[in-house]
């Protein structure tokens, strides 16, 4: 297993996760901005509490967003929110991938280190 999963493979995987996440998020944001302009006729930024990203926690916010989008009903603000969610999930996914990698190659040292990072991030995203 160790030979099959070399560190080069981890580096490549991380690289693909990062580039895909950033490109997907920027693409969604562009669609969201265009959608916002076509529906409201302007591009004004409103600093009202209803326009802030807020939920019980990040994962429930993301879950609700995906659910509403899959049902086909969305507002431009939700599309913009989706772009931010994809962006924030990008480094999170690369940590999950690293945890899986170090558990597969049985490197307990780095499994613990990456697991620590994952637990702290998850706790913070869950607003614990």
């Amino acid at each position, binding site marked *: 297993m160790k030979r099959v999963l070399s*560190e*080069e493979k*981890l*580096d*490549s995987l*991380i*690289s*693909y996760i*990062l*580039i895909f*996440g*950033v490109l997907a*998020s*920027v693409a969604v*944001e*562009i669609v*969201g*901005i265009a959608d*916002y*302009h076509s529906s409201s006729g302007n*591009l*004004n*930024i*409103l*600093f009202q*509490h209803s*326009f*802030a*990203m*807020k939920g019980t*926690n*990040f994962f429930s*916010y993301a879950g609700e967003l995906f659910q509403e989008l899959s049902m086909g009903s969305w507002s431009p*603000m939700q599309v*913009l*929110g989706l*772009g*931010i969610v994809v*962006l*924030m999930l*990008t*480094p*999170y996914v*690369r*940590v999950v991938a*690293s945890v899986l990698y170090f558990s597969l190659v049985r490197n307990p*040292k*780095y499994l613990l*280190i*990456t697991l*620590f*990072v994952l637990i*702290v*991030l998850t706790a*913070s*995203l869950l*607003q614990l």
Partner: protein
Amino acid sequence: MLSVLIISVFAGFLGSLTGLGGGSIMIPVLATFGVPVKYAIAASMVTIIATSSGSAASYVKERITNVKTAFYLEMFTIVGAIIGATITSFIAPRFLYFFFAGFLLTSFLGLSGHLRGELPKRVKQDRFSKWLELDGGYYDEAAKKEVSYKLKNALLGGPCMLIAGLAAGMLGIGAGAFKVSIHELILKMPSKVSTTTSNFIIGITALAGASVYFGSGLLFVGLAAPMAVGTTVGALMGGRILNRLPNRLVRYLFLVIVVALIAQMLYQGITSI
């Protein structure tokens, strides 16, 4: 949003050219236009994930980034970022202007003679750094040779990165110059590895900070979205022409921008008292 988008392209472009990063430029500019500084910091934190991850991707693939060292140091920066962002959520905005101006001074570390020099020679690795497998190698295109290196002082470098993370989370910036200084002066990391590893760490540190701002209700999608698109495009453009510009011009640009940003944040701080 259109103005934020256009300004972000310029900020991302200049941030990439000077090494300051888009966030350090965007926050003072947004403050000038009357955007509450805490909203600007929160949006910048999300933006940094995009610029950092975008540029980190290629360096990781080319194996210049030391991923293992990054994993170790991230343990400290994320904790620091969470503490820093929590402080920002509670303190009065006027303090943030002064902290921001003060921290911008650390950008000058990037110009220090200690940094960007030759490869560290005869590094005697301590036991802890060796146990953490903090070593590596990469192909140096400029020198046309394979470079291998060993790092030291991991025990001291970790807690120092906690401070870097705290400043990043608190001020919504990457704190790249500060991180690079720790890598090079304490861990004895080669310059190229240092810059790229710092870039890699900045993304995860920014996520930790952004998670706190999400919970505090300071994150506005209408501001963060155009900033993320603009700075990413700007940084991409900046990265493409950086090698074509003379070093002296880049340094002058850096000095003018840093001085202007410090003056702007001090002015905002003084007028908000």
